[in-house]
């Protein structure tokens, strides 16, 4: 059982989402994240020019059985890619255990991926 975390461009989110749902992933969570990085964006407010280092991205978290990791990563690599600096990162880590709150059963079978 693994956790896949991906930081992607907001503009790529819709395509990534569609592709993930069409692959074998049937649940994932996402949230808006603000990151601080090297790139700067120029802004102007009331005559004051300033640059912001706040970068807005979307973070996806997918928890799935080992066999689904590779297809999910492939989907994200394909759909979140633009080729420009700032396309994001994917991290994969182990998940030790999981429970279903409704049935009380545990282990990776509670992840009801398709198949």
């Amino acid at each position, binding site marked *: 059982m693994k956790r896949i975390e991906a930081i992607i461009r907001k503009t790529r989110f819709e395509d990534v989402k569609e592709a993930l749902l069409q692959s074998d992933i049937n649940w994932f969570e996402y949230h808006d994240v603000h990151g601080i990085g090297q790139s700067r964006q120029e*802004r*102007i*407010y*009331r*005559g*004051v*020019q*300033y640059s912001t280092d706040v970068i807005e991205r979307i973070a996806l978290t997918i928890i799935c059985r080992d066999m689904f990791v590779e297809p999910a990563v492939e989907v994200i690599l394909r759909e979140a890619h633009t080729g420009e600096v700032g396309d994001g990162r994917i991290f994969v880590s182990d998940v030790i255990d999981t429970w279903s709150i409704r049935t009380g059963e545990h282990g990776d079978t509670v992840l009801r991926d398709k198949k």
Partner: protein
Amino acid sequence: MNELAISLDTVWMLLAAMLVFWMQPGFALCEAGFTRSKNTVNILMKNFVDFMLGSLLFFLVGFGFMFGSDGAGFIGAPNWGDLSFYKGDLPVEGFLIFETVFCATAATIVSGAMAERTKFSMYLVYSAFISLIVYPVEGHWTWGGGWLADLGFHDFAGSAIVHSVGGVLALIGAIALGPRRGKYGKDGKSRAIPGHNLAIAALGVFILWLGWFGFNPGSQLAASGEVNRIAISHVFLTTNLAAAAGGTATMFLTWLKYGKPSLSLTLNGILAGLVGITAGCDAVSPWGAVVIGLLCGIVLVFAIEFIDHKLHIDDPVGASSVHGVCGILGTILTGLLATDGGLFYGGGWHFFGVQCLGILVIDLWAAVCGFILFFGIKKAHGLRVESRVEDEGLDIYEHGESCYN
């Protein structure tokens, strides 16, 4: 005077009063949008206070100070809620309402400049003071038939009397307070503190633009007869042209200066044109109105930069530049561009000189009053909230409510 004609005039005056009242939500939204969400309740409350206290005090004594009988042309006798002294064709109660909304407009200009760091209780003191003394006295000199009116000073709807006075008080208030925490870096560089909702600010400016169609054409105080119907239509046109020219000038200037057309400044530019045309909206030609609007829209950008970057006075909404600088500019430009008596139309120096003198003494009065008031409060009681209150927001600490839940 014909019964029907005076009824028509009354209806027009009251309709205009409604439009000027409608400028209050315009100011409230404009100021709320240009400041941060943690201080929204506070700035809305201040806008209500200006109108509530202004209405009561102007009814009670201000109306008498402004229009009451006098000896020296300096101040009228307080009326103590009695309106019977006023002699005019229009019903006195309607006229009081019309003058009240103007007084409240002068008062409400200041709240934006002092936003996000003023003790609410001390703002009440200021708000009472302007409606009680500052505005009625200089209003008496001009619209009340005092000494400036005798000299021939012309301020049709209040570039000087309403706007520049509000703007000067705003500037002095902002100086007395000092900048918001974090506004200027250790290197002295100005930092942007973006307002929380430009959509709200933009709606506020559209509302103000609409309100100005009462503010200026309404100041004719009559609609019946050929002279009046032509006059109010003329004022309507000059008012709109100046607003459009002001906003257009600011838009292109910011495009040129910063590489992109700036909404936050264009909103101010529209108001700058409106403030500028208010003094001479009846006296200049439509072309003159365009010139006034363009100049105000251009000067505005430099005024905001100068006050912010050079003087390090923190005015979050630009009230001192919009109402102060452009109010003064509009009053002086009336002396140049008035088709009857203006310097550029062969009227000679006299009228221009009177305009300069008028704006000087009116704003000197406002500055002296503002200085005594704000620095007096600062010394006696403290004008500014504690730094923790400022950091976490005035809404929670001063009012116990937050705008967005």
